[in-house]
């Protein structure tokens, strides 16, 4: 990757990262994050990690961020005033700056990190990646599937509509839940239309 392109992307990444933590409106934060992720994905491609770069865009930007977007909408989050403890913020800012500075100094002064010779290995084509996934990292790869399954089960366990026996009032109150039947669907639609904050989110992710 050429130096010019790097600096362009780096500045964009830094700005968008600052945008994530500095903007008041969560949607704007989210957009900044999406830009950041996209930017880093492009950087991956520039570093030879083509497959992973695209995966980053597909999964992060295309799916995870949209999931965030849904939740922000679902909870009808508005721009927030800056609250909290100034001291904490100051402390956090100083600490983070120190962290970054320390790392930066070390990275820049470590002789080992220099310009690399790009070997064929580092070209992240889908073939090389696949070969590693299915040999050295076979267990890890298989575990990932279980990890995702666990996450799905966990999310459902947390968010699924309580059983009817738990009281209809609770069920009706939680209009955010998955609509499972047309009847429930219409009810939750009507509620959400009134509140504008909500949506049936059947299988949204």
């Amino acid at each position: 990757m050429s130096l010019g392109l790097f600096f362009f992307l780096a500045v964009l990444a830094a700005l968008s990262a600052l945008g994530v933590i500095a903007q008041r409106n969560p949607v704007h934060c989210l957009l900044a994050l999406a830009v950041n992720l996209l930017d880093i994905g492009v950087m991956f491609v520039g570093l030879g990690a083509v497959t992973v770069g695209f995966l980053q865009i597909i999964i992060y930007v295309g799916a995870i961020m949209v999931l965030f977007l849904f939740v922000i909408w679902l909870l009808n989050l508005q721009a927030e005033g800056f609250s909290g403890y100034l001291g904490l913020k100051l402390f956090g800012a100083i600490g983070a700056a120190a962290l970054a500075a320390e790392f930066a100094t070390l990275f820049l002064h470590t002789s080992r990190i220099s310009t690399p010779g790009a070997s064929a290995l580092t070209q992240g084509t889908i073939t090389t990646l696949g070969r590693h996934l299915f040999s050295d990292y076979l267990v890890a790869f298989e575990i990932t599937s279980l990890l995702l399954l666990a996450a799905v089960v966990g999310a459902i366990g947390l968010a699924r509509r309580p059983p009817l026996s738990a009281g209809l009032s609770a069920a009706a109150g939680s209009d955010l839940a998955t609509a499972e039947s047309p009847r429930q669907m219409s009810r939750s639609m009507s509620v959400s239309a009134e509140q504008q904050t909500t949506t049936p989110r059947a299988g949204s992710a």
Partner: protein
Amino acid sequence: MTPLNLTTIDFSWLAILPLIALSVGAIVVMLAGTRVDDEDSAALGFIVLVALLAAFLLTMFELGQNTAAFRGSLAVDDYAVFFEVIIIIATALTVAMSLEYAADAGLAGAEYYALVAFAALGMLLMAAAGDLIIIFLGLETMSIAVYALAGFIRRDAKSNEAAIKYFLLGAFSTGFLLYGIALLYGATGSVRLTAIHASIAARTAVNPLLLLGLGMLLIGFGFKVAAVPFHMWTPDAYEGAPTPITAFMAVAVKLAAFAGFLRIFFTSLDPLATEWSPVLWALAVLSMTAGNVIALVQSNIKRMLAYSAIAHAGYALVGMAAANGREAGGAVLYYLLAYAFTSLGAFGVVVALDRGAESHAQIDDYRGLARDHPGLAAAMAVCLLSLTGVPPLAGFVAKFYVFAAALNAGFTGLVIIAVLNSVVSAYYYVGVIVAMYMREGGVAVESMSRRPGLLISIAVGVAGVIALGIYPQPYMGAAVNAFASALGRPALHAVSMLP
């Protein structure tokens, strides 16, 4: 382009059969869950128990193998078996505790038990990990399942809050852990533990990347094992979570985290022991002191046990810090074993006081427990005394072992601090005993005869506490051998454990 040949993959059934057993169990639970009401979810618990039993038996086949599988990404050694066995037992006891709890509290049974099984699966991976990625994935599988479980009482604001706090800080720490892994990878060029060890050992000058990575790993694991100052999530998560899950978090999760922690630091990063040992020293002192002192003022027993868990992590860290002479690792393993049984017993009693999802965990709720339920009170007393370190219970022998190891390494100051902390801890443990035996007027407890699962898990916990205290020799031997196997050394059968 020739396709990948399946026969060239280093495929070893032995290493993954327990994992397969658990995942099959989890899937069967989910399938069966569609036909079972939440009120009858105990049946699903039994499925998990069967899966755990299968995993246990399959684990036993790995004993004494001391090989690596899947190109070194899984270790099949006694160390793994040691932790796997404890984790499986801890999970089984958690499930047994939950049999009645989950149904009474109206938790979503299928998801609950499936998540427990998934979490256990992640823990087994951490115990058997041969590279950093497996540790990371195991950790995440476990954590993600437990995040959800912590918030499983959906209508309870406290449970929600516990989950969100646990989740946020857990994910936060994952970031640090990963950065550490990245730097370690950059410094050594590999994520395999053996390769990392070789790379570090071969180098004379210390790479700053390596030190940064080490620091980040310490922060990450510090969070996971709840060492001060990375402990902020612990009390909140423990208090709000459903009580059996609190037990699960306090025992199995902590054990798995330590399994990974010890494995990385003793098999890969041991050439850097002079760098990390002082840090662990400081963490140990902070954890013990802060944990014990803050526990003094707690009025909620789950919270108190959370702080006590922090303190106990500190004691385990004493052993780790002392492990310049690497045999001391056996002490940490034994400590964790003893802590596991003790904590399970104690939390079992806490579960017994719950009514459905409603928690009666104020220490005042325990007043007069000895009069109505002498058995429960006695079990609690035994466990608390063991946590205090009163002989001849497990906690004492464990503390003895750790202190011996630390003294042996010349950490006299650290041991004195630890001992003073033990005295402080006696104060709050004894406070609960006082409430149970010497005061009147707590809450009414449901009959235990209705809750055989809970009864059994408490009994197993207490039995473990006593057995480990009175006849520790075989378990100590197992711990030492397990540790030796992780280091790739022959088992130390008749050799003295205190060099």
